[in-house]
Structure formats: structure tokens, C-alpha cells
């Protein structure tokens, strides 16, 4: 359940209420909920005493400050050249098959979202994905099934 009111206050206490606190505050919310709702951005704007448009303007610039609703675990599959050469498509197909969603979608139980992302810096251990902030590398379809099963049991 998305109840970020308290969290916005707590994060503002921690990082301060100046303009440069905006990124860490938004990052703190995303760390917990994986995306930003309109309401929470308005809340942040009030807390920092800036316009909500400023908050949205900043958030919408950064791919990780997602303004689309996402699941509890966001799977980001690297699609840049080396991962793409080393079997990224098989990884995506396997995840799509397993979770019954397409790239860009979220499972109906709101547990998993699947998206593609640009280079995450694991080209020597391609293909690679991030699940929330944790990288998984040198993947095979079998390996990725095991990893996602692990998250399902969490």
C-alpha cells in the first residue's frame, strides 16, 4: 500500500528541505515504493516549498525516478550491445513466459515489473539484469528462473 506521507516528512528531516535535497528525497521514496505517484510529488513540493511542476520536471528526467506504477520488484534487463549479443532476448523471453507479462508491464498481483534499460556496467558478465538495486550477471534462462523463484518466495 502506498502511504508515503510520513515517509516524505521523515526523508525531509533526514536530507533537509533545500533544493539539493530533492533528489535524495525522491530516491528515498522510490527505494521503498519503486515509483512516484502524483500525490507524493505534490507532498514533496509542499514539504520543500517549491512548485509541484519543479518536482515532476526533475523526476520525469530520470528513468529510475519512475512516474509509472511499478511492482514490488522491478526487473531491469540490460539491452545495450554486449548483453544484446550475449542472449538478452532469451532472458526477456524467459521472464515474459514465467511472469506472463510483456516488457513494460506489471504482474496483476503487483509483485513484478519488467522493463529494459541501457548499459548497467556488467558487459564482461553479460547478460545482466537489475532487480531493484541488486545486479545479477552471467545469466542463462535457467538461472533467471531460479532467481525470480527466489523473489516469489520472499
Amino acid at each position: 500500500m502506498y502511504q508515503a506521507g510520513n515517509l516524505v516528512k521523515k526523508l525531509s528531516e533526514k536530507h533537509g528541505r533545500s533544493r539539493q535535497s530533492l533528489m535524495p528525497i525522491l530516491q528515498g521514496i522510490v527505494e521503498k515504493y519503486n515509483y512516484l505517484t502524483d500525490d507524493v510529488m505534490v507532498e514533496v513540493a509542499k514539504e520543500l516549498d517549491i512548485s509541484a511542476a519543479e518536482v515532476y520536471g526533475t523526476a520525469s528526467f530520470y528513468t529510475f525516478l519512475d512516474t509509472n506504477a511499478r511492482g514490488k520488484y522491478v526487473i531491469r534487463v540490460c539491452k545495450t550491445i554486449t548483453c544484446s549479443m550475449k542472449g538478452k532476448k532469451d532472458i526477456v523471453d524467459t521472464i515474459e513466459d514465467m511472469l506472463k507479462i510483456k516488457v513494460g508491464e506489471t504482474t496483476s498481483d503487483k509483485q513484478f515489473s519488467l522493463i529494459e534499460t541501457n548499459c548497467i556496467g556488467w558487459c564482461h558478465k553479460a547478460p545482466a539484469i537489475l532487480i531493484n538495486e541488486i545486479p545479477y550477471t552471467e545469466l542463462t534462462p535457467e538461472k533467471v528462473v531460479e532467481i525470480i523463484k527466489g523473489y516469489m518466495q520472499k
Partner: protein
Amino acid sequence: MKNKGLNKVDLIFEKVDLKEVLTKAYKMSSGEIIQQVLESGLKGRGGAGFPTGLKWKYTAAEKEPEKYIVCNADEGEPGTFKDREILDRVSYKVYAGMAIAGKAIGASQGIVYLRGEYRFLLPQLMKELESFHKISDEIGYKFKIRYCLGSGAYICGEESALFESIQGDRGEPRNKPPYPTTSGVFYKPTSINNVETLVTVMMIIKHGAEAYVQLGTKDSRGSKVFSVSGDTPTPGIFELELGMSVLQFVNEFGDGDTKAVQVGGASGFCVPRKKFSETVIGFEGVPTGGSMKLFNSSRSMYNVLHNYLDFFAEESCGQCTPCRIGCQQLLKGVEKVKKGEAKSTYLNELVKLADTMKIASKCGLGQSVGNAFRTIVENFKEEIIY
């Protein structure tokens, strides 16, 4: 011209006595540190290759009392992963480089801007930072470092975009001048250096500039950490002396069937097999922030180019028209040629567009899209068309 060949070096990851090097630097004057770095010939290791000593000299000359050292750890260039490895294995050397830089330019604050994709490293890095502060405090440094995190934007590796991001804004590059040395983060004089550059500085202070210039060539002093990936039996991170040819590199890392090497990532240059022996890796030939991707003959260079253009079309900040529209049109253009919807001569028009982007774009992103575009299209035209 005879070159030095391929030599493995161990400077960046070498274990050193932190206290000893920091104490040595502490006893040096600002001028002495800058002189050492100037004499070493060190150029920035992030890719752009600006002489580090000059950057420090300019920042040191600013009268403003509030100055910053920023460590650029927004490593986003496709094919580069060495900065993550450096931070993971020897972060104390990065911090030391920042403190030494701070002493050189007269700054008491440092900021590490770490890309969001590397956030999993942060708890460990913070712990190591705490230990570092303890040691630097003991010696007498009044230099404090903090972290700022990125959130998935390649453009924030561009220095002025990175400052905007630290300030809590959209990561859109600024007009230059003014340069960071006079107006950087919070519009204060700032020296922004790459992770590897800062570690290299620490090693220059330890061993002395004289020892350092023994490595490398006149235009490319020292050694460099390379991120090797693609069609190679030995992908990974290797520190090599600068000055080798692409051929020597391929002989070491290739799989016997290498047809091209992309040097410097998506914003770098594609070197085809016929130019391997004449091309030197370094500032006299093809410069690189460390990204080295090998492609063998099973790979379609159209797919490579398409992947890069797709990358740039997404990562362009959209602020200036040549880059925003240019990236999209290059991508659409090669798709059209491939599908036969446009004549092959249309590629010449696209190369002209890439050249225009080089001149008219506001920052390094738009300016360098043409590097890969031109070198892939010129050398692998038939693969793009058919």
C-alpha cells in the same frame, strides 16, 4: 614508428599504505602537488582527456574560498565498468585522490556522484569512507567527502549536467563557458575528475612524476584500465600501458576472428580489421575512457550501429535540437536504408547530419554520436545496406 607493445601494469589496484601517501601529500604545497601532476602528463581518464594538472591549476587560481572536488562516478558509457571495479576494490585510493586534489586547489569539500545503477555498492563505500575520514583527520586534512546518487541518466556523466543533478535539477548540460573551474557545482569553482584519474594522482604522488612518465607515450602518458567485452575469451578489467596498437590488443584479447573493435564505447570509434595495425590506442590515435568491445565476423555491424543509435535517442536530454532530432533521424534513417525504403546514397545525407550534430550540439553527447556513426557506416557500408 615503433610502439611499446602490450604491457600489463599494476598501479590502480596495487595495495598501498594510505597513511604514508596521504602524509607525503600533506607535507607538499599546493603548487608542488600541481607541478607533479603537470609533469606526469596525466590526462583525464573519463574519456575527454583534459590534462588534470591544468584543470587543478585553473581551479587553484580562483579567489573564491568555497571550492569543490567532484568525483565523476557516473560511469554510463556502454562497455565501461572499470570505475565500479575501482570503487569496489580500492575506494580508499579514490578518496585519497580527492583529498590530495582538495589540497591542491584549496577545497575542503568533495562529492562523489555515483550512478544509480551502482547503488548496491553504497553501504560498503560509506563504511570505507568513514575509515578514510578517520585517517585523514588524524593527519590533519580538513577535507570531507559525501555521496550523491544518480538515477539512471547517461547524460549526467557530462560534467555540467552532473552539477545540475547534484543541485536537484534535471540533468541538462549548461552552456560553456563558464567552465567548471570557475563555475561548477553550486556555481562555485570545481575540479571534476574521473574515478580512475583520482587514483592515478594518488599513485603519481606515491611514486613521483618521473617514474610515471616512464610509462606510455609522449601524447598518452602512463597506463589505463581497460574494460574488455564482446567477442573475447577473456572479458574483464585489465590495466595496460598506453601506446599499444589495436592489433596488439586484438592479438591478446581477440577470439581469432575479430573483425572490428569499438574503442571508447557508443560515443567512440569503430576500428575495422584493415586498420588494426596502424591505429594506436591513446590520444594520438583513438582515445578511450576504457571501453573496448570486440566484434567477430558473426556479428552484424548494422545491429551494433542500431543498438548505439537507439541508446543515444533515449539518452539525449532533448534540450538542444541537433541532438534531440538528430539522434532520432539517424536511427530512422538507417532503418529505412536497411528496409530498402531509402536509397543507399541516403547514408551520405545521414553522415552529413552526424557532422552537423558534431558542430551544432550543445554538449559531448550530441557531438560524439557521429564518431561511431561515421566509422561504422564508412567501414561496413554493405552491412548497413544489405
